[in-house]
Every structure is written in C-alpha cells, then in structure tokens.
C-alpha cells in the first residue's frame, strides 16, 4: 500500500469514531428513511392494488378521475410556461441590472414560498369571491373564477411562481455577462444574444426549475382546495380527487389516484437526477 493512502485511511478512521457510534448512526438513518419514505411508498401501492388490478384500472378510468387528470394537466400546462417566461425574465432582470426595488422584487418572488398555500387560496377567494373585492363586478359580467377552473389555474400559478426564477437566478449570477457583451460587440441583437448565448448557458437550470415547477403544479393541494369548491368532475384536480375518494371510504380508489401522483414524483426525481448529472461541468 502506498504510504499516503495509508495515512488517508488512518485519518478517515480517526475522524469516524468508534464502531458502535458509526453503526448506531447509520442504523438510525436507515430506520428513519424506512419509516418515513419506504413504508409509505410501499403502502400507497399496496392499498391501491388491494382490490385487484381491475378495480385499480376502474378507479383511474372513472369519468371523474379522467376529468381530474385533465384539469391537473390543464393547470400544469398553463402554470409551467407562464412561470418559465416569468422566471427567465425576472432572473435576467435581477442578475444583469442594478435598479431601485431589485431586492423587493427578489423578496416578492419568494413570497409564495413563505405564505401558507391555504392563505394563498384565501387571497384569491377574497379577491374574486362573491364577497370579494372584484366579486360583484365579475358576477355582473358572468365570469366565474372561484369554485371554477380559472381559480384553480390562478392558485396553481401563484404557488409555483418562484420555482423557475429561483433555479435560474443563481446560475445566471454565477456566469456573469462577459459572453453576452461579446455577442453584442459582434453585432448580435439583444434578443439573438438571449437565444444563442444566455439560454444555452442556463438551460440546465431552466430545465431543473421546470421539473420542480411541474411537480408542484400537479401536486398542489392547499391553495387549490380553497378555491376549488370540490365540484366533482369539474373543479377537482388529482390530489383533490384522491381526498374526496378517501373521505368517502373508497380507499382503493383514493390510493389508485395517489399512486399516480406518487409515480409522477418518482419520475420527477429520476429526471431531476438526470438533469443534475448532465449539468455537471465535465
């Protein structure tokens, strides 16, 4: 053995403490991981399939389940592109320019993170609800926001607001603007510079933000629950649908829907891991 590796091994051992401490800590970590992550994961699928494969498929193909899926997808399809555009614009603005209100903007972007989703939902009820500020006007013009699809989309957009901006901003700040300036001196317009220089530089950050944004958009419960009104088949997203089924003691149905969301989470984790791996500088 090379002398230096010997030294390394020895110092590693001296840093790690006695065996019972090591195994005790590892055991505690494994136990916690099992109880809080593995067991629930197994439980979701066990409950989902407890009445067999047919019941599982039936629960998922029920018209109200399909409607919930459509609404969930609709909310995500609107919220993700909206927040993508907003997140890119906001992080570009904050990373590249010094202006009055810059830190206020940064704080505002984080607001949805710090506000309880239920409060976020209530804000929309107070704004657009029957007794809300804009309620009477909306009623006069026959526009329904609360207890309707627009409310769900609005609430989803609100709670997923920070995801893209929060992921892209640090990447943009770390990379500086030298390349953009070089592109400008070479004659490229601002728009072209953004598309051919800025965007390729931050693409992994953007993708990462989009993945997280999408996961949250599809999985959001609190804010959406407040504005939804739980009109089955009309204003229920997948998480709300799962809750309704659960409250009706349809455990197999509730967990079948839950398993769908769990699968989404697992796929998200895999894609996220892949993006992290690809974005590492080689």
């Amino acid at each position, binding site marked *: 053995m090379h002398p230096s590796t010997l030294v390394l091994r020895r110092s590693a051992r001296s840093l790690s403490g006695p065996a019972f401490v090591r195994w005790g800590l590892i055991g505690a970590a494994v136990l916690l991981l099992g109880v809080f992550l593995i067991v629930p994961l197994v439980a979701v699928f066990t409950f989902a399939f407890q009445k067999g494969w047919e019941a599982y498929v039936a629960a998922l193909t029920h018209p109200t389940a399909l409607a919930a899926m459509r609404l969930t997808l609709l909310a995500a399809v609107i919220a993700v592109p909206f927040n993508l555009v907003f997140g890119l614009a906001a992080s570009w603005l904050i990373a590249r320019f010094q202006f009055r209100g810059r830190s206020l903007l940064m704080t505002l972007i984080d607001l949805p993170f710090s506000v309880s989703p239920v409060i976020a939902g209530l804000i929309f009820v107070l704004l657009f609800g029957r007794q809300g500020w804009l309620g009477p006007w909306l009623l006069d013009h026959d526009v329904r926001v609360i207890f309707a699809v627009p409310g769900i989309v609005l609430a989803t957009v609100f709670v997923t607001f920070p995801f893209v901006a929060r992921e892209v901003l640090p990447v943009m700040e770390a990379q*500086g603007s030298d390349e953009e300036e*070089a592109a400008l*001196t070479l004659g490229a317009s601002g728009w072209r510079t953004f598309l051919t220089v800025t965007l390729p530089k931050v693409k992994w950050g953007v993708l990462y933000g989009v993945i997280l944004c999408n996961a949250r958009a599809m999985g959001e419960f609190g804010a959406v629950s407040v504005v939804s009104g739980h009109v089955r088949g009309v204003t229920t997203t997948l998480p709300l649908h799962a809750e309704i089924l659960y409250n009706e003691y349809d455990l197999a149905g509730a967990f079948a829907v839950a398993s769908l969301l769990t699968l989404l989470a697992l796929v998200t984790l895999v894609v996220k891991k892949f993006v992290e791996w690809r974005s590492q500088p080689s």
Partner: protein
Amino acid sequence: MSIVVEQLARRFNRGGSPAVSRVSFHAPGGAITSLLGPSGAGKSTLLRLIAGLEIPDEGRVLIDGVDSTQMPVQQRGVGVVFQSYALFKHLTVRQNVAFGLEVRRVPKAEREARVEEMLRMVQLEHLGGRYPGQLSGGQRQRVAFARALAIRPRVLLLDEPFGALDTRVREELREWLHALHERTRLTTLLVTHDQQEALEISQHVVVLSEGRVAQAGSPADIYDRPASPFVASFIGGASVLRGHVQAGRAAMGALSVTAPAAAREGEPVHAFVRPHDIKLAKAVAGAASASTATGRVERLKPVGGYVKVFLRLPSGDEVTVEVPRSEFDALGVAEGDSVRADVRSATVFVGDYSI
C-alpha cells in the same frame, strides 16, 4: 480610423468618485495606443465606454471622425477582446469565430472561407472542432482575437488581453500581436497595467490615474520625460530622493542635480532616479563630484541577468540600483560595503513628495 475621446465622464455610484472623469485623448489611426495605469484608474471603463458597453454621463466618443456616443454597440464595428476571453463555451472554436459573420448574414461559402482564414491567422486551424474548455489559455485568447477580427472591425479594443496568462505565453502573444498589427495596421486600443507591455508594443501611450489622464505621448516621452510625480513613480520603478533647492540646484544630502527652472531657493524638491540611472563604483576617499554620493549596500538581490542593489545614502534615502551581472562581478561588493553612486540622470519635481 482614429479614436477621439472628448471630456468623457462616467460615475457608477451617485455621490461616489467617478470611474472616469473628463478624459480626453486621441488614438491615432493605424497605431496601437495603450491605456496604461494601475488598477482602479478607469482604463477598462474607458474601453467599455468606447465599445458602447457603457453609456457616458458626459462627453463624446468619435470613431473615424463620426460621433458614436449614442450609437448602439452592435453598429460601432468594434472588435473587443476581453481578459476573460468571453468565448461561447457551448460552441466550437469554428462556431465562435463564425458567430459575428452569421449575425451579419454573410453567405455560407464566404463565411466558411473567412473562418478558415482567421483560424490560419491565429494558427489554430487544426483545433476548429474543439470547444473552448478543451484549449489552453493562450489558445483561447487567440480564438478571442480571431472572433473579434472575423467581423473586420474598424477598430480593435483589447481589455488586458494577456492579463490571465503566464509570463512566457504573454511574451509570445505580445510578439504575435505586434506582428499581427504590422500586417493589418488596425487602429488598436490596448488596456494594460503592465508598463513593459505598453512601452514595448504601442506607438502611443495614455497614462491614467484615478479616472484622469496623467500623461499622453510616445513611449519615449512617457519614460524619459514624465510630466508628473505620479508618472515618474509609476513607470520604471524609480527611487525617490528628498531634498531642497540650494544655490539653484536640487540638493539631497551631499548629492545634487539640476533643479527645475521654476524652483525657488529653499523649496522642497524630490527626485526620481531609475534603477539603471545610477552607476556604482568602488568607494574612494575624496574626489567626489556633485552628482555622486557614498552609500552603504544594505542588501543584494540577484535577479537573473542583473543584480538589484539596495543602497542607503547618507541622507537616509534608500535607492535601488540595477547592475548587469558582468558589471557587478567586476565591481566586487558585498552587503555592508560602501560604494560610490553616480546619479546619471534624475527627474526632479518641486514640492513635498507623498504617496
């Protein structure tokens, strides 16, 4: 294709000191002009103002006689090389060089021919398919030059282009830039803090200090006739001697040199003496002329081809003398010895000296 800057001013923080304050200078067409100064002198800001990457608070920039102050950076036709190279990391060398041509919608065949021509010019034709991350610092900087020159700029602006490179590569690239300029005769503005670089490859030098022009002129002007104590101390590593005007001469202890014509009797003066403007000889009793003094060798520092001698004069001032190796060996002095120092030339300014 000259560059003229008139009364240019730029302040970054309201109430703070200006980065550039009312700077005027003229960079003659077809020449290399250096903007030389210590860090924080406003050199890079000035370059960015000329490139159009910053907007001046006051003043004008004229490129080839045309007022370009309000012209967008894209239309100025300036080739800029940044210290950080600023290459597009996600594009190959060839794509980097082609970028400006694609923006200008140069037809494909012409574009490809021009890219190859540029790569040949910077001797990187075999690396066209590589990414910037796969190149050495010197190669990256040459790609940056090729990219800037591909668009046939009217003027070339270089912001500390060799600052991040090691000495040997820096000297090679300096030579290369000199040869390139001989061929292209492109009006070039070079920002540098390295006086060697400025004096060696430029025909015109603008010395900057705290956002102002300290002196502008040929390298010989700057080196031989510094206009202010700042320039005298910044260029050439001079030592400072302090004294007074006595009988029309600047007297520093036993040593005296010619005083400026305007100096009045008894006024304080300080003289800048370059390390190679002092000649050392064996100390002998008597026989001293006005421009010689006997000093004690405090320390010797051999630096390759020459030896740095740190000398303490009777007046208490310390001077640094550079003696070629052969001369030093013939002189045969050791630390603690007394030697006679003959000041061959000094630049004298009236007033107290303070840094």
